[in-house]
């Protein structure tokens, strides 16, 4: 007997009530907050791992003030995913018996599919298709930030599109300061309407995501800040990636099945962070997050970041993050027979990971006179390099590897207008 989907209907929070209760706290006069600075920000980011996935991720953002109390932000990013990896050819997965996600009809489209990244080629057939999988996601964000009498309100709209997935998202945030700005409370709400239309299927299915966050920041002393964050996410719809397939051995053959995940997923997280000033030149940030969801995944995340001013122009940061999670209740390394829920997603396996970060911030100044590109007070350069390693209990279904190693970096520039 399979465990029922632990949606916990009785425990589903009336989050709307929670938000309203929180909003009532905002009806008090206090000193005004500030708008974000007017600036242009450009970042160029890349990710490369031994599962043969490469991602290039340029993005641009511009913030302008429309008035003293209103700012507008526009952002554009591109996710360019490629993987010089083994092609699986056409996907011929059968659907399993799952009721939640309907039928899983497969289509021989003649397209090459790279299931490592779930990236599919934009077109072409057979050998003439791209040697490198080519998945391009374009994302547009437009946001408005408005100072209201007692705080700050932001509203962002996001549209993201790739040839087998689209997303429309609205995100709203309200925040305000209390007690002479010693305390800041922020409430945010995100709602996404996504559509999935895999190239190997004939159907289009929906994914709905709703998230509510509450953040409490408190100044404890002239050297110590803390922050508590509570997050709740509800997702439903086509939550499985059907580019991946599950292979079940039967006498004399192997049958491939589409993964079937529960229709709903309820995800919760609580986190606490501290920033402590060690001395006039350096600080340390420590954080812990506990996560749990209705698929029985529990995780612990520990993080630390040490930052030090090397000079009045340069700041160095060194960070470490460790992560532990257990597997989803329906995860199996090998399925002996078809089950109601099945997955090939290594994200749902028992795993631990470590991430090491090195970052450098350079602030421009008319006085430094050393590097020409720094000769401007309005400029800031950011560089970061991360090394990431993840170990899963079971080998990845496609690469056969338990250990994933990745390098990712970001180079960014900020220019105050």
């Amino acid at each position: 007997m399979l465990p029922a989907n632990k949606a916990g209907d009785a425990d589903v929070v009336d989050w709307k009530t929670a938000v309203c209760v929180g909003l009532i706290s905002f009806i008090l006069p206090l000193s005004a907050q500030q708008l974000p600075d007017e600036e242009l920000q450009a970042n160029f980011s890349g990710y490369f791992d031994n599962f043969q996935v490469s991602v290039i991720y340029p993005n641009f953002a511009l913030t302008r003030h429309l008035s003293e109390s209103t700012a507008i932000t526009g952002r554009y990013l591109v996710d360019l995913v490629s993987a010089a990896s083994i092609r699986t050819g056409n996907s011929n997965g059968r659907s399993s018996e799952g009721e939640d996600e309907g039928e899983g009809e497969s289509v021989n489209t003649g397209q090459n599919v790279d299931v490592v990244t779930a990236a599919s080629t934009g077109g072409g057939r057979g050998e003439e298709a791209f040697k490198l999988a080519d998945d391009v996601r374009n994302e547009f964000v437009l946001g408005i930030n408005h100072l209201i009498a007692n705080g700050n309100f932001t509203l962002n709209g996001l549209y993201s599109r790739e040839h087998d997935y689209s997303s429309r998202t609205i995100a709203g945030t309200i925040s305000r300061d209390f007690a002479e700005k010693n305390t800041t409370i922020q409430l945010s709400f995100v709602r996404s309407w996504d559509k999935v239309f895999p190239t190997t299927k004939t159907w289009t299915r929906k994914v709905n995501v709703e998230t509510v966050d509450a953040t409490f920041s408190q100044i404890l002393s002239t050297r110590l800040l803390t922050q508590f964050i509570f997050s709740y996410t509800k997702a439903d719809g086509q939550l499985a990636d059907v580019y991946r397939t599950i292979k079940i051995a039967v006498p004399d053959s192997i049958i491939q099945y589409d993964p079937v995940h529960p229709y709903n997923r309820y995800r919760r997280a609580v986190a606490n962070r501290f920033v402590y000033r060690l001395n006039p030149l350096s600080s340390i940030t420590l954080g812990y997050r506990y996560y749990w969801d209705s698929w029985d995944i529990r995780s612990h995340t520990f993080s630390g970041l040490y930052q030090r001013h090397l000079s009045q122009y340069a700041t160095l940061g060194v960070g470490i993050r460790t992560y532990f999670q257990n597997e989803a209740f329906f995860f199996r390394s090998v399925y002996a027979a078809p089950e109601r829920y099945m997955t090939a997603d290594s994200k749902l396996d028992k795993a631990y990971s470590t991430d090491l970060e090195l970052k450098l911030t350079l602030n421009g100044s008319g006085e430094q006179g050393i590097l020409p590109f720094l000769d401007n007070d309005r400029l800031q350069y950011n560089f970061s390099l991360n090394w990431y390693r993840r170990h899963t209990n079971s080998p990845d279904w496609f690469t056969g590897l338990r250990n994933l190693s990745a390098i990712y970096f970001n180079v960014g520039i900020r220019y105050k207008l």
Partner: protein
Amino acid sequence: MNRIFGILLIFTLAVFAADAPQIGQAAPLFQGTALDGKKIELSDFKGKVVLIDFWASWCGPCRQEMPFLIELYRRYGKSPFEIVAVNIDDKLENAKRFMGQLPEEISFTIVQDPKQQIPPKYEIKGMPSSILLDKEGIIRFWHTGFKESNKEDYVSEIDGLLKE
């Protein structure tokens, strides 16, 4: 459960009560050292309209306000008007670096207060805080923070105090 929510909410809100500024009272007196090393006392400016401004180089709105104060001081140069800008940077060099970046030199009085002894006398609620005193040294107007739209308020308030 709802009752507990309500009680906690009331308690939470009760903590947020803030003190009112002391308009109509005599401004607390203070003394300090100006940038040129001269000893300054607030009482030296009795008979003039005084704008006391608390600022620091690490405060963004303070940096935006400073050019306006320079413009104000130039505007009322021939009037019995004085600006006393109390700088609370821990290190004077940070304040001087910021002043060096300004397009114009500051000619009004800057009082150094690296130990932040003067702000507690006024219980300022934010940075910058600008307090206008009349010729008798009475607090008449109080501004916390700085916005471009407040500039006209400053001008009309100073005009009114100068006419008294």
